[in-house]
């Protein structure tokens, strides 16, 4: 049995600032969900509410049909791992943190924890405050996976890990998900690297849900149309053009639309090239405020500040 997440009319305000604005979202149990958004979009606030770390200003959040806040029956089944591993004391040793998690978590898999500690080369006897960023993150994902919580959420948990460790994390996450199906929510800025793991994607933008769809459906919507400028103009007329680039007489338009067979044939006959957009490209263009048309020759459409 897996646990669904249901969020209705959710608002979160910090004084004057609205962090979450009328969020309605249903995440099916037993799937890996991706949660993406720009810095300050509200991802961490949303996950903190789901984990009952934070009380919403208004609205309801249910996991497995039950309200989350101050409900130990549910919070025991939810695990949120944040990027900094901030739920433990810095002076504690790694092995103490693992023992603590084991006592707290009914489904704890000590064997998996030991294997991951080994795989990520986490020094058991070091104080957590003395760990490198990469080791801290590795400890976080180790605890997150070994907890086997029916709802497990990673909030940028792996951002500080190096590439080989991140790949090891993806492999372990997938393997453990397949062996023990449960609900995962993964928030990340490393979009193209992680997105193949997702079944569904939610894009949060300035506190609101911008998109919630199966990954394949969303990806099928993004198309880059490239060719002679006039032909591209005719082809994309009436469609939602997210961004464009020009290079001499060539134009490349990024369109938010899925094209059918007929349109694809039209494109081929007009000498236009249709290419996919990656989730990261789509995300950048969907969450970037529309900019004034660029002068011919500019090629800066796909850039974003980190």
């Amino acid at each position: 049995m897996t646990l669904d997440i249901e969020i209705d009319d959710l608002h979160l305000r910090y004084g004057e600032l609205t962090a979450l604005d009328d969020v309605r979202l249903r995440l099916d149990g037993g799937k890996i969900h991706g949660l993406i958004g720009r810095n300050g979009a509200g991802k961490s606030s949303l996950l903190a509410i789901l984990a009952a770390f934070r009380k919403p200003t208004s609205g309801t959040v249910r996991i497995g049909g039950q309200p989350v806040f101050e409900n130990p029956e549910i919070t025991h089944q939810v695990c949120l791992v944040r990027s900094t591993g901030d739920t433990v004391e810095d002076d504690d040793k790694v092995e103490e943190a693992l023992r603590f998690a084991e006592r707290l978590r009914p489904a704890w898999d000590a064997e998996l924890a030991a294997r991951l500690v080994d795989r990520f080369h986490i020094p058991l006897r070091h104080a957590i405050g003395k760990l490198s960023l990469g080791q801290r993150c590795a400890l976080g994902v180790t605890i997150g996976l070994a907890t086997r919580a029916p709802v497990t959420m990673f909030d940028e948990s792996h951002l500080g890990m190096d590439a080989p460790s991140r790949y090891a994390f993806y492999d372990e996450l997938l393997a453990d998900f397949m062996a023990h199906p449960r609900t995962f929510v993964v928030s990340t800025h490393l979009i193209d690297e992680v997105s193949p793991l997702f079944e569904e994607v939610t894009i949060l933008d300035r506190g609101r849900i911008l998109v919630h769809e199966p990954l394949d459906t969303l990806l099928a919507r993004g198309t880059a149309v490239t060719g002679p400028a006039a032909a591209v103009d005719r082809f994309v007329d009436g469609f939602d053009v997210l961004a464009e680039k020009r290079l001499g007489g060539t134009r490349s338009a990024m369109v938010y639309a899925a094209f059918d067979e007929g349109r694809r044939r039209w494109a081929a006959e007009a000498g236009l090239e249709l290419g996919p957009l990656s989730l990261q490209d789509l995300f950048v263009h969907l969450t970037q405020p529309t900019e004034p048309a660029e002068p011919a020759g500019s090629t800066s459409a796909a850039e974003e500040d980190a």
Partner: protein
Amino acid sequence: MFDDHSPIYRQIAERIRTDVLNGVLVGDEQVMSTNQYAAFYRINPATAAKAFQQLVDEGILYKKRGIGMFVSPQAGAHLRERHRDRFFADVVAPMAAEARAVGIPLADVIAHLRQLDRDGGSETTGGTDDGRQPA
């Protein structure tokens, strides 16, 4: 690992079709499980399942409940027929267009193809449904 020009599930489906066409996978042979594909390509198992479903819909694979996915006995013949139907449109037409673009007379292309045929083009794997080569 992927060409990035189509969704991953379509590329997985295409790879299985190619394996069937080349006789790497033969009729009634079991294919790897969704989970094995997911782990190998580091993708969500639902994505791998989508590739399998597409192939079931096309009659390339069939499902044995509780056991797994198998190659349909007629999959090879079916795919060869389909590829023959599309060969001139998908392969020959773009080749002719490319030859024209770079200034190679079609007569030269034809002569080259005749030469390939004389050099033993007929010896390449023809492939019957059970023409699997020993691993």
